[in-house]
């Protein structure tokens, strides 16, 4: 499995430059960028300090992996990420205020949620559960807000663990459209130039990497194919895009009506942060949905 490793400090810088470039290029998106920008930055900061995978080194059955059994499906102890619930209250102290400033409409609920965490009314374990989609009730906080906030809270820890897990299967072949680490569906993809100094001719178009909607692991996936249904017929595969921003596309399949956003970095001077890139592609995402296509997986802002 070929994955891309992102250096974390560079990642922070990357978010900032991508955000300021996006604001300059697409003024209409400013409110959205200003809302999610600080959240992305804070999440990246949390990820930097988060512990990685501290569990045992996994013995991965290469044959099963090759057939699609992702890493967490092969763990002996229940098939999930390691429990990070103890770290969540601390993370909530920095992340929830940032979210409250960014999303005034739910600011009050977030404050209530913060108080519930501090008081112990919402246990860290229940909070983590909410982050993974379990239904948990907190008086004064809507289920939607609770799930949104909780999943943003667990995300940095999940991403950091996934980084370590992905490294364990780096050399194994992976041909699936789901995440090799957690089995999640991709909500983003990216074409990256291949740098190989032993080669006489450099590939220009780049290889496609799908990016997990849950843990942001990236994995190489056959470029001319629909990750949802496997269709390889070029006549059925569309690249929807705004000619003015040709490097941003929605790769859609007219056979199964699925799409995944794709950032073509082959010609880009600077590689933007992929969350910011996906955010700037929201207008394209909306247009693509309006044409009757459905994403393989959503972004937190997809439903806004």
């Amino acid at each position, binding site marked *: 499995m070929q994955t891309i490793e992102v250096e974390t400090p560079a990642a922070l810088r990357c978010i900032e430059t991508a955000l300021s470039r996006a604001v300059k290029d697409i003024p209409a998106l400013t409110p959205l960028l200003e809302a999610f920008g600080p959240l992305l930055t804070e999440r990246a900061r949390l990820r930097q300090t988060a512990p990685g995978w501290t569990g045992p080194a996994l013995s991965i059955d290469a044959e099963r992996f090759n057939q699609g059994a992702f890493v967490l499906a092969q763990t002996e102890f229940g098939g999930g990420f390691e429990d990070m619930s103890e770290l969540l209250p601390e993370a909530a102290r920095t992340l929830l205020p940032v979210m409250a400033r960014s999303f005034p409409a739910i600011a009050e609920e977030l404050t209530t949620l913060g108080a519930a965490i501090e008081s112990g009314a919402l246990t860290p374990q229940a909070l983590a559960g909410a982050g993974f989609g379990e239904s948990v009730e907190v008086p004064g906080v809507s289920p939607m807000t609770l799930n949104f906030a909780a999943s943003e809270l667990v995300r940095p820890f999940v991403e950091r663990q996934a980084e370590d897990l992905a490294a364990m299967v780096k050399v194994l072949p992976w*041909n699936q459209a789901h995440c090799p680490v957690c089995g999640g569906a991709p909500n983003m993809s990216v074409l990256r130039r291949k740098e190989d100094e032993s080669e006489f001719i450099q590939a220009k178009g780049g290889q496609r990497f799908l990016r997990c909607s849950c843990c942001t692991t990236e994995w190489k996936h*056959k470029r001319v194919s629909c990750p949802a249904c496997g269709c390889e017929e070029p006549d059925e595969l569309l690249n929807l895009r705004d000619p003015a921003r040709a490097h941003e596309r929605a790769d859609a399949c007219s056979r199964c009506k699925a799409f995944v956003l794709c950032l073509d970095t082959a010609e880009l001077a600077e590689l933007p942060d992929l969350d910011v890139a996906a955010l700037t592609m929201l207008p394209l995402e909306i247009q693509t949905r309006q044409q009757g296509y459905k994403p393989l997986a959503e972004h937190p802002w997809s439903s806004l």
Partner: protein
Amino acid sequence: MTNHFADIGNADAVLIMGSNAAEHHPIAFKWVLRAKDKGAPVIHVDPKFSRTSARSSYHVPLRSGTDIPFMGGMIKYILENELFFKEYVTEYTNAAFIVGEKFTFKDGLFSGYNAEKRQYDKSSWAFEKDENGSPKRDTTLQHPRCVFQMLKKHYSRYTLEEVSSTTGVSQDDLLKVYKAYSATGKPNKAGTVLYALGWTQHTVGVQNIRLSAIMQLLLGNIGVAGGGINALRGEPNVQGSTDHCILYHIIPGYMAMPHAGWTNLAEYQKANTPVSKDPLSANWWQNKPKYMVSLLKAWFGENGTEANGFGYDMLPKIEPGEDYSYIFLFDRMYKGQIKGGFVYGTNPAQSAPNTHKIRKAMDKLDWLVVGEIHHTETSDFWHRPGANPKKIKTEVFLLPSAQRGEKEGTISNSGRWHMWHYKAAEPLGQSKPMGAMVVDIMNTVRKLYKAEGGAYPDPILKLDFPATYQPDALAKKINGQFTRDVKIGDKEFKKGHQVPSFALLQADGSTCSLNWLYCGGYTDEAGNLAKRRDLSQTPMQAAINLFPNFSWAWPVNRRILYNRASVDLNGKPYAPAKAVIAWEGGKWVGDVPDGGWPPMSTGKGKYPFIMQTEGHGQLYGPGREDGPFPEHYEPAETPVKSHAFSGQLSSPVYKRAISDMDVLAAPADPRFPIVLTTYSMTEHWCGGGDTRNTPALLEAEPQQYVEMSPQLAEEKGIKNGDFVVVESARGKVEAVAMVTIRMRPFKIQGRIIHEIGMPFCFGWTTPKCGDATNRLTPSVGDPNTTIPEYKASLVNIRKATKVTEL
């Protein structure tokens, strides 16, 4: 290619001869460098130092037309130092076969030579047969008439001294190459040979390649990963067009063109179907009748019946022994025997040899149709410099062609990968793909025949011909279909269904296929396999960079031909680290084996070279027109009067056109002392028809030049950048002198012989860029293929006082 591009990276040594791969096959060269990165020596043998030489481990300059002595010396070196792969040679090549008593080789001539006809009667070259009609063998390789001993004797004359004095390569350099390359004779080592037009475009072109085959067989380099003989084709789909019969002497799938001597299908089949009684020989061509009948059924459909030989009776037939290739086609045209013709995507008035004659020949046509993107020297021949358009009767039609990106279809790359490409844009204006032009024109002709009749309308009206050009439908028909419901073994197939594999093609008219090689590439179950882009592979396949699910390769998706020679008699790979196939648990794994039979040791196996009647790699090849062993002959125009290997100066059987315009310089002609070689260049595509119309490329390479050594320039009083005239017995070309250390004088037979090089891409339709280099080259060709000798002819060069072409 016996192998494929990505396989070159598996080589332990790479020999590039007669190819400028870095400039003309850059993607292939990427794999060469991968092998080099892993420690393989990359050896470039070529008259000119090019960008390929710059990237190789070393460059060895050699005089054009002396590849056979160069490699002959290597054969001697391999045999005398016992560097050959003994088991492979004994078991898998015809080294042990006994040659018949009547065979002789004396002073450069093989037995059976007819000087008047310039032809060999090959019957005396045959093997000695046993009572079953199979060749007699001596596996001790001691019999004086066994191929191994004959080979040893034949090349014993190719001593370092003589080879050096003929090729101009120093003895040190010869030994350096021989030593480095023959190290691949070890069972677990592989060496690859890459060649291009630098080998083929000679009067001994086929024998150049034959000798490399002998070398590779001795070293056990055929059928293995990182080995093989690999032609880097000069155009992306040359492989495909050859498979589908762009050449006159074959019909699709490498079957002989019917000639008037085979008056009916039975005679054709009898003459063309080899027979072997050896149960261990697959003799694959014994299936030819099935492929031929399937082809006829694809051409004539319902109208092809048993009564008319499935349409064979209606086929046009050539005269036996006649040559209809380029050189002779234009010779006939020059002699007024051709009224008109179609030219698509080629520019003979620029790229055929002895171009003055070609251009004059075209004056004799009544009509000419040219399918092209731009005006070319061919479409515009009637107003070329020096011609009077008023006196040329030819009516010329220029049909605008679609560009590559404006059409869909397949190409077959040099590695036989069959790949679909998609249309990216609609053709401009009224331009059309060539296929559409042919289909539309033919349908109009059919209409006319239907309405007006004709002398013999059947061959045209009874064709099973499409109403419109549909690449997908054509691709399906190339694979082939069942023409009726049939039961083969215990399997039933319905009429109209795709034939799953060529093993199921039939000789009874129940199947059709436009080309048996491609049968299995477009099936009902899997669809069009040329569209596959799947990179999945097993670890064994990954170890040799083999991607069985990416596109589809003929035959039957086999990526490395003759791969049964990569394993020992028990099916165990000779090179376990880069195994191509292996017999494991009662089945073959890895690549698709050359036939699924078990290993030889079971007694139920088959010899690996299944396309040969006897199943063995041919060290001795009695089928060629110019002898069973490659022998050095000088080019048709040679700077020497004699050579050390025999009294036979040039090939006794090379082909040549004879007319008042076909003049040759005498051997060592004092008027033309310099060797000329010609080539392509990076900035211009083939004859330059496309790229001379691309301003930025013309800016980078604007004019005809001639590359020459500083020594020659000094001798001739020429300075870099001077205008010069290059002259042969047939014409003159004006050029700019490019004096460069990349060209070197050769020391041949104790004296200096100069060689110069010129690109062939410039033509007069681009103002002031110069005109065809091929006005210099002769209409002489290889006796097997008639490919012209573009790579070696004689010229002289002088400083020009005035030029008009530049």
